[in-house]
């Protein structure tokens, strides 16, 4: 018979993987809920997953590619920006949704117990459906522009994992903060828009001066975006310096995020 002791807990807690594993079905149905509910009662349905990055691409192509004559590492500007928009749209959406996730599920949190970590992780996983759909458009564009991916494509899964890990770390931090300080929710909304211009989405990372590359690489999405471009549309060699620095900061953020989240989760139900 299993025995549970309930006491006030002090200090920092590790992630309880066994408990998470026991709740994998719940995780599955929550992700399924997010995916199913997102485009309910829309005319376009899942087409929205494609419309958003495609329209951003069109606008960027006109403004930055056409008017501002932004360099695009030798590939056509539309595919240059679209390749970056894939991971970026995923990251920005996962970050804002994850930040709001605890607030949105406050009612459930105050009525039932389950490992709280599941909540901010749900949008991180659910976002992958949109991401995959949007990827198919890239395939079509590559056919159109007759661009072949190169052997670096074997590193693509690594980049996707780095992308998910980054979204998770940010999600854990911001969701735990936002449930107590609602400001964080508002801030995440518009920072994600500003942050896009800090990421090499509309401009190539080759514009970054050599001596600043390592520092800039601490922003994990820089490595992810430039990595996508390198593997899929042959812009530059794999930006390992970015990816290395990005992995360090992403792992750090995820670990500290998990600790912070676990420390704060005991008051979620009280402050929600």
């Amino acid at each position: 018979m299993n025995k549970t002791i309930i006491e006030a807990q002090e200090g920092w807690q590790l992630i309880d993987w066994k408990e998470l594993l026991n709740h994998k079905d719940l995780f599955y149905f929550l992700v399924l809920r997010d995916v199913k509910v997102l485009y309910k009662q829309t005319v376009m349905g899942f087409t929205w997953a494609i419309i958003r990055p495609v329209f951003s691409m069109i606008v960027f192509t006109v403004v930055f590619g056409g008017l501002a004559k932004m360099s695009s590492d030798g590939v056509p500007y539309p595919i240059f920006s679209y390749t970056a928009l894939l991971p970026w749209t995923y990251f920005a959406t996962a970050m804002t949704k994850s930040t709001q996730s605890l607030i949105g599920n406050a009612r459930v949190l105050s009525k039932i117990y389950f490992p709280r970590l599941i909540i901010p992780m749900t949008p991180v996983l659910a976002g992958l459906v949109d991401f995959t759909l949007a990827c198919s458009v890239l395939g079509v564009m590559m056919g159109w522009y007759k661009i072949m991916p190169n052997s670096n494509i074997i590193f693509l899964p690594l980049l996707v994992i780095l992308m998910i890990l980054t979204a998770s770390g940010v999600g854990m931090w911001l969701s735990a903060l936002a449930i107590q300080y609602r400001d964080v929710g508002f801030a995440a909304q518009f920072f994600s828009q500003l942050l896009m211009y800090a990421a090499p989405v509309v401009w190539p990372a080759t514009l970054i001066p050599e001596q600043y590359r390592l520092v800039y690489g601490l922003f994990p999405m820089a490595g992810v975006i430039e990595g996508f471009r390198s593997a899929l549309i042959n812009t530059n060699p794999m930006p390992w310096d970015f990816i290395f620095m990005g992995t360090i900061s992403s792992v750090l953020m995820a670990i500290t995020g998990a600790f912070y989240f676990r420390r704060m989760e005991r008051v979620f139900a009280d402050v929600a």
Partner: protein
Amino acid sequence: MPDVAISVQDLSKRYRIGLEEERHDTLLGAMSSWVKSPLSNFKSLRKLSSFKSEVESDDIIWAVKNMSFSVDQGEVLGVIGKNGAGKSTLLKILSRITEPTSGKVEVNGRLASLLEVGTGFHPELTGKENIFLNGTILGMTKKEIEKKYDEIVDFSEINKFINTPVKRYSSGMAMRLAFAVAAYLEPEILLIDEVLAVGDTAFQQKSIGKMGDIASAGRTVLFVTHNMSALASLCSRTILLDKGQIIDDGKTDVIIQKYFSLDENNGPTGKGEIFFETDVSNGGPFILHAMRTLDERGSIRDAYSSFEPITVEIEFSLKEEIKNLVVGFELKAELKLLIFRSFHNDKEEVFKFRNNSDHRYKLQAEIPGSLLNGGNYYLEPCATVFKKYWIFKDIPGLEINISFDVPNTDHTYVNGRPGLLSPILNWQQGN
């Protein structure tokens, strides 16, 4: 030693309730506080989760204070108390939704909690999808739900709508579905907070029956409720909470008496007559003035012999005419168990209520003699617009006391016979 399912030792939980914000009467005051407010807001938000060495303060409340008790395996324990007594907080600690401030709980066995029905129901999802979502939220696995899926759907009685989004359900239907999922939870220990009050009466009855099954299946149950008759029928032992503390622990019927005596104006009043000062119809045209019971000679009394007929009188006036107004009363036994409800138009002698705000209507009905048993009964007036809605019902009414007597015999009975009623029937010998 009977195995202990839950043992609670010296449990306390402190909350910060957040005091009223500062107010400013001058523009200057408001502006200067607006400039300063981010800092003070930050401080007050941070305080929500930290209590640094503060023991007593105006905005700290002990929702649970120094509670100790234990529950044996297979025991069904009732938990009662007034609003804010700390019942839900206790269940939240036991189910690990919130952490105690101090103290310790030991739980032996798989525990599930039902603090509300339909937690996590999503209106856009279909009934079927919600069964799986809600089921896993309550702690079932996908496999367990698949196995019980058909039974759940049958119990909810909404088979036809199972593939319809829940937002197209009536609220009662959604509740049924939610309760059905909960009813098939099979934990070793179940915590229930006030969830039986859903659906129509028939469904409530069914739910209470299901609860009884769970209880008799040897499951340990903690049951928080304000429904005294459900409590009495399900739990043999009950604890009574007040202001976060256990003030009594014992046999259910004794504790219920104590609960009613906690708050005198909670129970019925009057010596055979009660006057209503509050507006029972919430600003509606129905003004209830009084209710009384009269004996055969027309005097107001509150104690009767069981063979005496009792006349119930309801006095009211109408500010304006109410179409299809039906007035009646409910007779309830101890623990507010409903025995019957009677309406003035039961025999189709519909009285016409004129539109005259000065006129005091007095409706009378007679409860025949030799029907009630010995003991206390409660009479509560009620009024409804026929088949539309209740104007009022379940308001505190009159308490009457019956002493059980059978005329023409020498027997004496102290508390009457067992049973809610004790009618004297005509017995004959057949051929």
